[in-house]
């Protein structure tokens, strides 16, 4: 009898242990992975999550990084009222691995969401009968392109980064990664774009969605940009032509509505891809760029005077429409007006900081093609035509017009024209670097001029000597990353203190 009791006890214990559902308690809020990924709607919400992650939800989200990476090193902005230690360092060319602006968290946050969709969406086909393979492939095209865009930013900023193509869904998948080479990353970017090309939609059904989501035209624009960085000028021209000849885009007319249509309202006929801010998610730029207390940046007057030379003889209506009252506003302490103004004269209130971030627009495609032509034998004249197209729209005065035909002078012209056209749109540093490094750093002078315009005088000498080393053209990896991936992740050797 006694022995029997023991058997009962032991078997109870075993039954309880064997039954895995017995202590299964789902969280009260949120949905678990097993409940999600059940239908086409879930896949749609997951893909929208990829886009929404660009705006926030991580340390240094893409929407912030895209400005910081594109402008802080360059000469378009200058420090303003609020002390911003990270920018202060960068502005003095004293970039350390603990600078907050070298965090790549936002880009990888989005990459992981893309990877998650790529892994979790295909099995939904078996669960939701209404979800077709065609729909799935459209989503895959979008997400692959978005991932490629993220890596394209990373490779230009850090040169070498870990290449992660698998979703981190569980702690068993957390791994330390070493860096992939620049070639490997570009190969992956081009491969993803090639795979996405036949899948990604050309039309999402509405104007806002065509501008706020990636389309076939965005893909082509990214391809053009990638080829330009790789000095594949023929391919870059081909990709630009695909956008230009599609007839889907045009320059916004340079009239009195130009500013409002392009920058305030957004999603204009010129827009190719814009990050969609709204009343629910205001953009961070307004607070950074205004002339209020707490503002971080304003226009660098020295660069402004170089790009838009003051002409005492000129009438106001002869001015470049992109100058005072558009890109910046001199009477408002040179604030970065593009993101502040309701029109050329009045500022928006801060609770209407809904200006989109323009990642690509049609003028960019035109000038990318001009740059590719300028670097192609006999393309100079055609390049001129494209530059003039952008300049005419902007009512650019003769003061800034250059008769350029050779590659060298065209490069200078295009870099300057891009600075006028895309002032504070996160392009400047990339433009300088891309053109400077071509032909074995033939145009190092572009970077030298940049340093002279932006660096505090006492730091110019050390900054110039640092910029002589191409490794300094890329950011260090944040020290938290080096530590979390120790010893596999190697710091950019420029930033390693020699023992």
């Amino acid at each position, binding site marked *: 009898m006694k022995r029997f009791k023991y058997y009962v006890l032991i078997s109870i214990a075993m039954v309880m242990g064997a039954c895995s559902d017995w202590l299964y308690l789902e*969280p009260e809020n949120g949905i678990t992975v097993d409940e999600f990924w059940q239908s086409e709607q879930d896949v749609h919400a997951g893909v*929208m999550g990829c886009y929404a992650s660009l705006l926030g939800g991580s340390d240094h989200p893409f929407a912030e990084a895209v400005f910081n990476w594109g402008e802080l090193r360059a000469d378009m902005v200058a420090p303003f009222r609020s002390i911003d230690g990270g920018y202060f360092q960068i502005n003095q060319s004293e970039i350390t691995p603990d600078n907050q602006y070298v965090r790549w968290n936002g880009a990888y946050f989005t990459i992981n969401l893309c990877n998650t969709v790529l892994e979790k969406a295909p099995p939904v086909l078996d669960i939701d009968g209404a979800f077709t393979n065609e729909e799935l492939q459209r989503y895959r095209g979008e997400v692959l392109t978005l991932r490629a865009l993220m890596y394209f930013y990373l490779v230009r900023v850090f040169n070498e980064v870990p290449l992660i193509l698998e979703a981190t869904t*569980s*702690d068993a998948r957390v791994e330390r990664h070493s860096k992939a080479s620049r070639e490997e990353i570009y190969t992956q970017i081009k491969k993803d774009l090639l795979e996405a090309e036949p899948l990604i939609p050309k039309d999402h059904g509405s104007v806002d969605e065509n501008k706020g989501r990636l389309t076939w035209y965005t893909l082509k624009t990214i391809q053009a940009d990638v080829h330009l960085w790789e000095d594949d000028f023929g391919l870059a021209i081909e990709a630009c032509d695909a956008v230009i000849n599609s007839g889907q885009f045009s320059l916004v007319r340079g009239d009195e509505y130009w500013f409002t249509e392009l920058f305030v309202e957004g999603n204009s006929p010129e827009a190719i891809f814009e990050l969609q801010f709204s009343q629910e998610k205001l953009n961070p730029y307004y607070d950074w760029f205004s002339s209020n207390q707490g503002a971080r940046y304003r226009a660098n007057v020295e660069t402004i005077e170089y790009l838009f030379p003051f002409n005492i003889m000129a009438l106001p209506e002869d001015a470049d429409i992109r100058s005072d009252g558009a890109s910046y506003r001199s009477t408002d302490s040179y604030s970065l007006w593009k993101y502040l103004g309701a029109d050329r004269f009045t500022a928006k209130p801060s609770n209407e900081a809904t200006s989109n971030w323009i990642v690509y627009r049609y003028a960019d495609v035109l000038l990318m093609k001009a740059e590719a032509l300028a670097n192609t034998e006999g393309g100079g004249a055609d390049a001129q035509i494209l530059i003039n197209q952008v300049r005419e729209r902007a009512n650019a005065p003769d003061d800034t017009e250059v008769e350029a035909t050779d590659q060298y002078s065209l490069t200078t012209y295009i870099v300057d024209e891009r600075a006028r056209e895309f002032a504070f749109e996160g392009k400047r540093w990339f433009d300088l670097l891309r053109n400077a490094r071509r032909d074995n750093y033939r145009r190092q002078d572009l970077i030298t001029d940049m340093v002279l315009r932006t660096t505090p005088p006492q730091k110019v000498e050390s900054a110039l000597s640092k910029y002589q080393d191409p490794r300094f053209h890329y950011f260090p990896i944040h020290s938290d990353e080096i530590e979390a991936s120790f010893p596999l992740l190697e710091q950019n050797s*420029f930033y390693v203190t020699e023992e």
Partner: protein
Amino acid sequence: MDKYILSGSLRYEGNSKFDASNRFGLFKGLSGAWRVSGENFLEFADWLNDMRLRFSYGENGNKPRKEGMFFNNYATFGWNYLGYNAVYPTNMQLENLKWESYTSYNYGISFDAFDSRLLIEADYYQNRTEDMFGYDVNIPSSTGISEINIMNIGVMDNVGWDFSIRTLPIKKADYSMTFDFNIAKNYNILREVADGYPLERNLTLGNGQYKNIIQIDNPIGSFYGYRYNGVYTEEEQLLARDVNGNIIADPNGDPVTMVYDFDNVRYPFQLGDAMYEDVNNDGNISAQDIVYLGDANPDFTGGFGSLMKYKNFSFNYFFYFRYGNDIINMTRMQGEKMHNFDNQLASTLKRWRNPGDETDIPRAMLGSGYNWLGSDRFVEDGSFLRLKYITLTYNVPKSFSQRMGISSMRLSTTMNNLLTYTNYTGQDPEINIKSNDGTIYTVGYDNSSTPVARQFTLNLSVTF
């Protein structure tokens, strides 16, 4: 009475806070005692009430603080995109998360003599925490997630002893007095860390940072940073010197001046700047000048107190102390850094301003400079002695209270945390020695969390 006592236990526990594969834990326990005083050979010692040797072994398991942490949860962003719901995974599945298990060996002796007027207990323990929990552990953010909510980060031992004595030296009909004393010493030793858990942090030492180094088979809680030697007040001090104290000259024969040259930053020190010790005498304050600065672990902790009674009055007090630990006074660092627009401590009024000023507070430098690198300037001795409580009680005589229909009545007043003796300049030396951010690096940092309150209590208790 029993001479040999032995008991054991076996516990099998399941908890819904773990994923299926690690949900259950088996925990064993065994304890025994030998009542030496029960043996025949100690029969002659009739003053001895009880003496025993004790042994115990126990296993235990800790679970995560929150329910449902192991799930791969999804939630919507706080904003829509193009008017659509946007969903993302808020955390990853934690399939590897295991019970934090705790094993303890305890060896002790208890001694009770002279009608319990002398009680002594001494214990030696060896505790091991396996699969120790670390909360919010940094992981490579290239995974898309920058920290893991909770993971098992390693193995930690706690070895130590404690000793307590309780005495009743005076015991008379009208008055009595007790005196108690205890003292303990603990060593924590890190034995293992999880794969990928970094042993060093803050490799680059910026303003406000101490280098975090943890070493296997060593205690956690050591501080590393620069040695602070005051402020550069003389031009002479700005010259770099070699080991023999001779001024270092550059190839042109000009003297080399002190710089902070690290991570592609080259900052020449100037008058009024913080002066750090150039340990390797190369004229450059850099990572090679980082030294050991102190230890967050106390040498001893303990307390003592007494209860005195005289007729209906009783009076008791208790002191306790922590001795030999260091604290990083982060609050003072933040209050003296003079680096941004934050409010600062009054001590900054005597900062360096003009050549000729003699002070140990560097000059104010808005947004620049290296005046608040992690250094021993902010490392302080955290030893203290505190009067934990003092109580005076009066028991109203029954003859009086019963006339009012009350069976007993007591009046007492207690003061808690009345006095503290310490050299520490922060607001409270009794900081939680454990880490404040869930990692094992930052133990002993004082960020001025709410200090213990000083309390005054008046208490009347009446029983009908």
